[in-house]
């Protein structure tokens, strides 16, 4: 009964009651499954095998299995992996007060730095023009 392409229903865990297909047979009591469930290793005792069988390659991709399920009228919705949201760190009032002081102290220094960069840009642009003319 246990072979690649066999339709199953998962009977344990949070994917219980969902349909899946055996993709690969692993060592011991384990198989690889994919379908409505997540693509993962699974114990045979956690599967209820069905009579239906589908022709697929070993280690078939998730998209291939999606198509097979789509033909049967079962749409598989993939969840996007969550991206980490970077939250601004909360600072203590004492630290905030320190930062404000340093910022005010830095500001005049920053302005001079900007001027310098502007001057550099102006110098950097000039040679480029000359290069174009040569071409």
């Amino acid at each position, binding site marked *: 009964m246990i072979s690649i392409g066999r339709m199953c*229903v998962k*009977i*344990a*865990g949070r994917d*219980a009651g969902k349909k899946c297909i055996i993709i690969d047979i692993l060592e011991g009591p384990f198989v690889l499954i994919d379908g409505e469930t997540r693509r993962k290793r699974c114990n045979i005792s956690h599967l*209820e095998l*069905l*009579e239906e069988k589908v022709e697929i390659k070993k280690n078939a991709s998730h998209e291939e299995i999606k198509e097979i399920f789509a033909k049967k009228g079962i749409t598989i919705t993939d969840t996007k992996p969550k991206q980490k949201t970077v939250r601004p760190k909360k600072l203590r009032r004492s630290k905030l007060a320190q930062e404000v002081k340093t910022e005010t102290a830095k500001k005049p220094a920053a302005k001079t730095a900007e001027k310098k960069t502007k001057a550099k840009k102006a110098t950097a642009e000039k040679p480029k023009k000359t290069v174009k003319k040569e071409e």
Partner: protein
Amino acid sequence: MVEGKKRSRTFRRVFKKTPGGNTRKYYLKRKPGKAHCAGCGDVLKGVPRERPYKMQHIPKTKKRPERPYGGVLCSKCMRNKIIEQTRAVSKQ
């Protein structure tokens, strides 16, 4: 004579250590009974046993197992039920 709630057993006694090192006795309302499986009657695991005002502030995912029939049936009964359902459909 002390208060009525201190004499009756409707309130449970909770002993807590104070920061000073003494133990103090608190009289709190009793917790509700444990949740049981609707199929076999076993005590359910992973279902907290708290008064409603505490259950309000617990997230839903911590109130019952994250599987079909979680918090209603135990894992064994859930497994049997899904097997029954799948076999009934395949026979048709």
